């Protein structure tokens, strides 16, 4: 009995010694909160984004970390709900004590992170494709991802200048993403002397879009623009072709994602084949050799092939996740903050993010400032189409 008591005592002392000797992880790593939807309706997007973040963090750590300090990704599921976002962001800030939050999600959820990040004085990088709330980003939130104004410009420039089209029909998803595009679309079409002959709307979960398409068929439109962040946009393309719509169709990034192409590839290739906005990473193999971004895109593709199981190249949201992590890495490299003082660490990362200058990434070149937490100065959006199961560059 005595021996057991002594052994227990030794075990407890050894355990307490281990605990007290182990420095808290905050002292030996930069903790990056990866808040993404891993369950629920946006899980497809969130899991890809998380993978992109993890691939870059692993690569940085294998190369010795940032100034010798490794990155520690702390994943947190926002459960595709605003409540999940609020609780997740609070947990990352108060319990996990992360240095920065990367929120890879959709616009409606990204907005829920902002008050929590502001209150917790923690920098947050948000994935959202709309510029509608850029003026609400406050001191601690950043949205260096993309802006509808840029997307809309390349879409309508192509329709007008390359195809000579002046009358356009639009189908907009009833979401922040669709609303943002619609808001900027009005300006851009008038800039290009184009007329929006009809604008139809659809819910993100819609399964029957035939009524909206009938209205478009009856209009004088010469082309159709479909803008959505989910599968309903791809269904709209399918149903339009099913209903005999032969207009050129241009759609958003999400409609070009691998699962949508797999599901509806044959409809995408019906003449005139679908055109989608895309990043160069999607078609890097078809970029000309002198394209300044080809090497960067190839390196990212190879990195994904090396670090994912089963090996695959990144989808659009994987690229976005990678880009978010590269933003933080760039800020950390320049700021070289001390990871032991959390408040100081967060503050220094925030200041470093604000002074990002000419950061050349996959979707744009970014220069941020205290007044501009978006900062996409040179866009790299391209238009691609589909031929024999492959994406082909149309316009860059």
């Amino acid at each position, binding site marked *: 009995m005595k021996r057991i008591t002594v052994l227990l005592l030794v075990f407890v002392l050894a355990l307490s010694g281990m605990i007290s000797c182990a420095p808290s992880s905050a002292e030996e790593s930069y903790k990056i909160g990866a808040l993404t939807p891993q369950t629920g309706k946006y899980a*497809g997007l969130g899991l890809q984004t998380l993978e992109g973040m993890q691939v870059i963090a692993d690569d940085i750590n294998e190369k010795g970390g940032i100034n010798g300090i490794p990155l520690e990704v702390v994943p947190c599921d926002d459960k595709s709900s605003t409540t999940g976002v609020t609780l997740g962001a609070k947990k990352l800030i108060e319990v996990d004590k992360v240095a920065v939050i990367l929120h890879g999600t959709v616009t409606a959820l990204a907005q829920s992170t902002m008050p929590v990040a502001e209150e917790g004085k923690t920098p947050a990088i948000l994935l959202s494709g709309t510029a509608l709330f850029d003026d609400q980003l406050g001191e601690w939130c950043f949205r260096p991802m993309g802006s509808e104004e840029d997307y809309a410009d390349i879409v309508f420039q192509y329709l007008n200048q390359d195809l000579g089209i002046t009358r356009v029909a639009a189908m907009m998803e009833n979401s922040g993403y669709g609303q943002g595009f619609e808001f900027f679309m009005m300006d851009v079409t008038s800039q290009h002397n184009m007329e929006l002959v009809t604008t139809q709307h659809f819910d993100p979960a819609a*399964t*029957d*879009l035939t009524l909206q398409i*009938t209205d478009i068929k*009856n209009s004088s439109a010469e082309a159709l623009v479909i803008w959505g962040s989910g599968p309903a946009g791809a269904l709209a393309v399918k149903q339009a072709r*099913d*209903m005999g719509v032969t207009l050129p169709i241009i759609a958003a990034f999400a409609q070009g994602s691998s*699962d949508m192409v797999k599901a509806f590839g044959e409809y995408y290739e019906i003449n005139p084949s679908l055109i989608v906005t895309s990043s160069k990473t999607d078609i890097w193999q078809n970029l000309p050799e002198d394209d300044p971004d080809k090497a960067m895109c190839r390196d990212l593709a190879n990195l994904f092939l090396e670090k994912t199981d089963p090996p695959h190249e990144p989808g659009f949201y994987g690229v976005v996740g990678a880009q978010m992590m590269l933003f933080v890495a760039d800020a950390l490299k320049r700021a070289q903050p001390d990871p032991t003082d959390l408040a100081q660490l967060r503050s220094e990362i925030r200041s470093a993010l604000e002074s990002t200058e000419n950061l050349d990434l996959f979707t744009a070149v970014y220069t941020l400032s205290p007044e501009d937490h978006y900062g996409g100065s040179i866009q790299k959006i391209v238009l691609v189409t589909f031929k024999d199961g492959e994406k082909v560059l149309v316009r860059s």
Partner: protein
Amino acid sequence: MDLSIVLQFFISGVNLGCIYAALGLGFFVVYSVTRVLNLAQGEFVMVGGMLTATFYSMGVPIILSALIAIAVAGLLGGILHCGVIHPARNLSKATQTFLTVGFAFAIEGIALLVWGWEYKSLPNFLSTPNIHFGGATIIGQTPWVTGITLLAVTGLFLFFGHTLQGKALRACADNPLGAKTIGISVDRMSLYVFILAGAFGGIAGAVITPLTMVSYNIGFPMTIKGLLAAFVGGITRAEGVILGGMVLGMAEAIAAGLMPSEYHSIFAMIILMAVFLCQPHGLLSSSGKT
């Protein structure tokens, strides 16, 4: 209003109505016998769609893929009964209903692990061509959805009205104690209706996937649509569920075709509230009795 819009509105409404009716019938068969709301019904739809798409992608003919998927979904219904409902048979119906939610979460989680997050699609059954007339279009799969829903409803009426097993199920629904007294195993009947509900879900999943696509997380929205169809029409009568599905389908078509998108949800809520205020047990209710 343009004739083509009116035609398309009607086609859209009937198509959506049939989908919702097919979803609602699964609730009807379980509730009418057990008085349990099976909130995992949408997961059977998901499994039906996913398995059909998976087998089809492996080279199995589409009809055979659908039949295998329907059989597996039926089996899953049996597992829900044997693994969850039967062990909890002495608990309240509300508790049993909540347990089906847990089962739904488990199925969704397993589906995410097995199939990942990607959407899957299918071509129209037997490559049925689209039909164009009067400026409107019937998409090739739509007659399959309508036809199979009608076939399922007819089969259900014949089963309940003209077979011994069907009559035994009705007896359990009307008077469980009386049914037990005359030697009917209520528990076995309960197992049969869960298998039937699973198969109904599987049928719905297989036939709607060419129209809507399927992914691991469509179960919950399908459950909600099916529940609404069942409650609007009256969950205790099959014809009520069909009517409920049609009302919902038409309402959605009106909202999509004629109203600004910001009013869609309000419009659906107004219809629901109107039905529940005027007919609290549904349009074709029998005051809570089958």
